[in-house]
């Protein structure tokens, strides 16, 4: 288990809603599932010092991030009675209004799915080596900072 190659979670650019629909559709054959909990992170057009965020450019330390994500997954599967869990994170440019994070937990009963999804989102925000550079409409930028559990 520990030595298996970590799954890739990264996708180039925004995560399209049709991709999310396909993921949901694929679970219709898994008829032991009773509940899915999904979290989607969407890029906000925040106003910072009178300048509007137009997009976020995401970068990562990929080898380390995939190992860390594998470790997070294993912890979650030990703690919750899940049927399956899928995580996707954008790299590169994601425009305001588009989806950059997709966490999808499924279980026989809703509590496990909901709690596993929430905990995974918190761990991704806190532990995954990913950085977002907020690009303003005037082509200047600032580096994004995650606040604790907001």
């Amino acid at each position, binding site marked *: 288990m520990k030595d298996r190659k970590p799954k890739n979670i990264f996708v180039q650019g925004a995560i399209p809603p049709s991709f999310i629909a396909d993921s949901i559709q694929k679970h219709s054959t898994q008829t032991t599932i009773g509940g899915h909990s999904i979290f989607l992170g969407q890029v906000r057009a925040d106003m910072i010092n009178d300048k509007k965020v137009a997009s976020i450019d995401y970068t990562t*330390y990929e080898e*380390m991030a995939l190992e860390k994500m594998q470790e997070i997954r294993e912890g979650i599967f030990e703690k919750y009675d899940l049927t399956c869990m899928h995580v996707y994170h954008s790299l590169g440019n994601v425009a305001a209004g588009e989806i*950059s994070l997709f966490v999808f937990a499924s279980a026989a009963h809703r509590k496990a799915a909901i709690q596993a999804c929430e905990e995974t989102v918190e761990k991704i925000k806190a*532990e995954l080596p*990913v*950085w*977002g550079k907020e690009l303003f409409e005037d082509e200047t930028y600032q*580096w994004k900072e995650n606040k604790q559990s907001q």
Partner: protein
Amino acid sequence: MQVKIIIFGQLTDITGTSVSLDNVTDTDNLVKTMNKLYPGLADKKYLVAVDKKIIAENSLLKENSTVALLPPFSGG
């Protein structure tokens, strides 16, 4: 001994994305050398990872170790 340093996030504005150093034997030593080369680094907050593991205290480096400087994460 040659050590490769890879740099991420806002720190790349100061150092670029990678730096190679000779004659560094441990991570404290590496951080000092980097601060001398790039004074802007000195007051930045970041974690140090050696071969993808975040270290909590001074660690000896091996030939071909990869050291990463990781500013606060902002994924999601």
